[in-house]
């Protein structure tokens, strides 16, 4: 399935942020329109068979590459859906497992829900100790197209 990308040459896309503030008895919920924080930092990728940016970049991402993996997360540690990040199904599965490894290893404690213990050392039992993972255990999931054609 082809990824529908918005081709916009007019001006860069604007993102929104919802800000909730309480002043006395009045609650103000404001939707701020602002330029994307990633405006001039996006890597220019060359073409390829896959429209997904990770396939085009051909990077061997490890679970310790938190600067890359954190780009796919919301502020509470949830993964962004494919329609937002633009990656293909294979890469989304791979990123999902790498993010799970990084979160279990306690490498991204600031991207967590507000009710969680931010410090990995405050976790219970075996979870407080250091863990590392082997990326070669991630088995690549076959994309839909080849699975359908095999039948």
């Amino acid at each position, binding site marked *: 399935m082809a990824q529908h990308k*918005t081709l*916009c040459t007019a001006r860069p*896309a*604007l*993102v*929104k*942020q*919802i800000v909730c503030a309480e002043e006395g008895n009045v609650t103000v919920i404001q939707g701020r329109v602002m330029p*994307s*924080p*990633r*405006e001039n*930092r*996006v*890597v220019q990728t060359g073409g390829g068979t896959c429209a997904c*940016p*990770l396939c085009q*970049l051909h990077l061997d991402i490890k679970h*310790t590459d*938190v*600067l*890359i993996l*954190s*780009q796919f997360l*919301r*502020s*509470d540690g949830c993964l962004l859906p494919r*329609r*937002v*990040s*633009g*990656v293909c199904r294979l890469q989304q599965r791979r990123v999902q497992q790498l993010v799970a*490894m990084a979160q*279990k*290893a*306690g*490498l*991204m*404690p*600031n*991207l967590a829900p507000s009710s969680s213990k931010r410090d990995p050392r405050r976790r219970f*039992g*075996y979870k407080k*100790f*250091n*863990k*590392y*993972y*082997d990326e070669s255990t991630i088995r690549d999931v076959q994309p839909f197209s080849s699975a359908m054609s095999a039948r």
Partner: protein
Amino acid sequence: MSSMQRAKQWATFARIWHIYDAKWQNPFDSSKTIAKYLKGQHKPIYHPLSDCGDHVVVINCRDIALPGPEWYQRVFFHHTGYPKGGATWTLAWELHEKNPTKIMERAVHRAVGGTLLRKGLMARLHLFPDEHVSEDLLRHVTSQIPQLRVQPRRLDSYSEEEVRDFPKVFDYPADHVIR
């Protein structure tokens, strides 16, 4: 023997103190390297009976790392010697909570081999759970054994500018709500 040759003799046969930082290292892989230094196999003058081994000080034993599920899958066996319930199987994380140096000690104990020299070699191993080592031991240390695994960096150890300026793989679509 000239004074130069005497200095060379001392330098060859002196017992050296090495230090190893076990932070984020697998204890079982590190123990193979540590055992090599304890036996003296890194020296060209090595012989098992010539007592050419060195001392190794291991710090940050509390911060060792095991792969994925090994913390609750690896089990350490102990038997008190008494019958009826003398055998206990302790999970790795339970043992590490009780005594943070025990896993490293057990790993080196196995890596060093089952020979009669083992007790002497283990006596030259000094394990510490954190970086606090007494000055009496530290003043002998002259060498460092390099770490086997790269220490990962946590996301909060990077500054905000570094995270912001890092190249991004994709940009948010139009009208996306950042949460």
